[in-house]
């Protein structure tokens, strides 16, 4: 059970939906816009959360093992098609953009819009056997879209999964237990699972994969913002870092005795 990757029985065709969110790829230091409402992204690239990268990989593996189809969905600006194409480059079949005007949506409205899109798609194509999300988004980290989506669709959900197995009519997911070790959940399909990084090691997109993704069509659903979708934000702040004047112990191997002196002072060696 739970060998590396999706260790699934063959013969159960599965339709999987993955939810991803476009976020700035911040690195060294975060700079905010003058109005303190957002990160200044002028010099940044964009990405999705590592948890979501793993959810994409898991979806592709499940369908490689069982047959079926994979769809990726995002609610975001026009440019979020980049993230959809990246998912298609590693093997996702289809993509849906819930297009905003670029303004941010709060978490409840995001979940509702995703649910509405799922209902619409399922009405024509049949149910998604499995809906995968990240455990938390990289930026807001609200830890709840998955649960709100599952509740609205009245489907069982396991959060924080680091192992997943799809069977005929059940999904088995395991996650880390608070006391160490693992908790194993078994839930009926159709189901929702939120994924944590570590569930698998995502593949890199191949050049042919990228080329194929570039040509694929993306379904667009236009969203209209209203007062209910506004975030509750007043302002963002960069937390004050404790100023530490670093003590340079030396350059190269000559510094070793001073390092060991510090290890001893901290009681880490006898």
């Amino acid at each position, binding site marked *: 059970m739970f060998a590396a990757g999706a260790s699934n029985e063959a013969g159960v065709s599965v339709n999987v939906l993955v939810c991803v969110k476009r976020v700035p790829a911040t690195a060294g*230091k975060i700079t905010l816009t003058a109005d303190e409402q957002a990160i200044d992204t002028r010099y940044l690239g964009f990405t999705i959360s590592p948890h979501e990268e793993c959810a994409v990989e898991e979806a592709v593996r499940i369908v490689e093992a069982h047959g079926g189809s994979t769809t990726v969905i995002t609610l975001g600006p026009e440019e979020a098609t980049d993230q959809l194409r990246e998912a298609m480059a590693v093997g996702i079949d289809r993509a849906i953009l819930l297009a905003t005007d670029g303004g941010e949506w709060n978490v409840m409205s995001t979940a509702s819009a995703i649910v509405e899109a799922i209902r619409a798609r399922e009405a024509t194509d049949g149910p998604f056997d499995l809906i995968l999300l990240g455990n938390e988004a*990289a930026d807001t980290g609200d830890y709840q879209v998955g649960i709100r989506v599952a*509740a609205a669709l009245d489907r069982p959900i396991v959060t924080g999964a680091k192992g997943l197995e799809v069977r005929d009519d059940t999904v088995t997911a395991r996650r880390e237990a608070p006391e*160490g070790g693992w908790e*194993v959940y078994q839930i009926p399909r159709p189901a929702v699972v939120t994924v944590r990084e570590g569930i698998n090691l995502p593949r890199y997109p191949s050049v042919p994969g990228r080329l194929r993704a570039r040509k694929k069509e993306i379904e667009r659903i236009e969203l209209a913002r209203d007062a209910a979708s506004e975030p509750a934000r007043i302002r963002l702040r960069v937390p004050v870092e404790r100023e530490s004047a670093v003590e340079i112990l030396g350059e*190269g191997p000559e510094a070793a005795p001073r390092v060991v002196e510090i290890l001893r002072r*901290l009681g880490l060696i006898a």
Partner: protein
Amino acid sequence: MILVIVEHEAGVPDRLSSEVLTLGRSLGEAIGHPLHAVAWGDAGAGLAGEGLAVAIGSSGVAVLHAIEEPRLTDYAPEAIGAALAQLIERDRPDAVIAGGAERGVEVLAHAAARLSLPLAANVTDVRPGEPWQITRQRWGGSLLEDARLDGPIRLLTVAAHAIEPIAAATTATQVERRPFVPVLTDRDLRVRIASRVPAEAGKISLAEARVVVGGGRGVGSADGFAQLDELAALLGGAVGVSRVVTSAGWRPHAQQVGQTGTRIAPDLYIACGISGAIQHMVGARSAKAILAINTDRDAPMVTRATYAVIGDLHVVLPAIIAVIRTER
């Protein structure tokens, strides 16, 4: 009323729950309303007995609502969320506060979804008023956001280590224990733990290690970790790595430190060949001291460290190991 969700082990609240109780108490005092607690757990787990009620007796709690349902013998997130939603609907507290760990946010999110209420996660500060305002963590804690928390019932989880837990100054008071019997359907109980796999015995857990030897891209290869493993073994510590290392498959994800990995809190973090990206640093923020070993004097890890050695880690580490061995 302020309602806090208390997670406990056999009647003893965990550390995060003590932080939650501390916030709940100060909020209750600020708005002049009583503090109530709610907990789940079966009869053997110290809830049916007076264990937990006594343990939280100095936290200012007036009433402990003990969720009682014979089918709730083990953790079942949806069912507990349903029970919480029913209690919240009946008593309509001013605010409900859970710990910002996996279970706390999970059960409260289930309740929030059922009640169609907003939920603010990883809050570090609450300011009651018109409207209530909160500060919460974004980007895993590398940013803070001041926000409104609207609605008649405010749901929130508290970021770990944001609040210093304090026991009440006065002596313990009697906590009234009230059973709360939720109405649960079989459907509410469909998500439950089917089995458990115990933790590997004898391994030093990364989260709890006193010293962590960290390696990043600068280590260069999977084989390059031999020196880090050796130093960690000498110091009785654990090896931690950056995401570049796990993505390359050099090391398992269980060793990743950071926003999407483990949060560490060692006495010393020896960070070798790690640049110090913000997503890595949020995982190392609770380290008491950092020793950076890096070829780049201007790397963020170096400028934020307590101590640094400038140089190639593959030269510096063997030298450190040699000194430790000769001095033994």
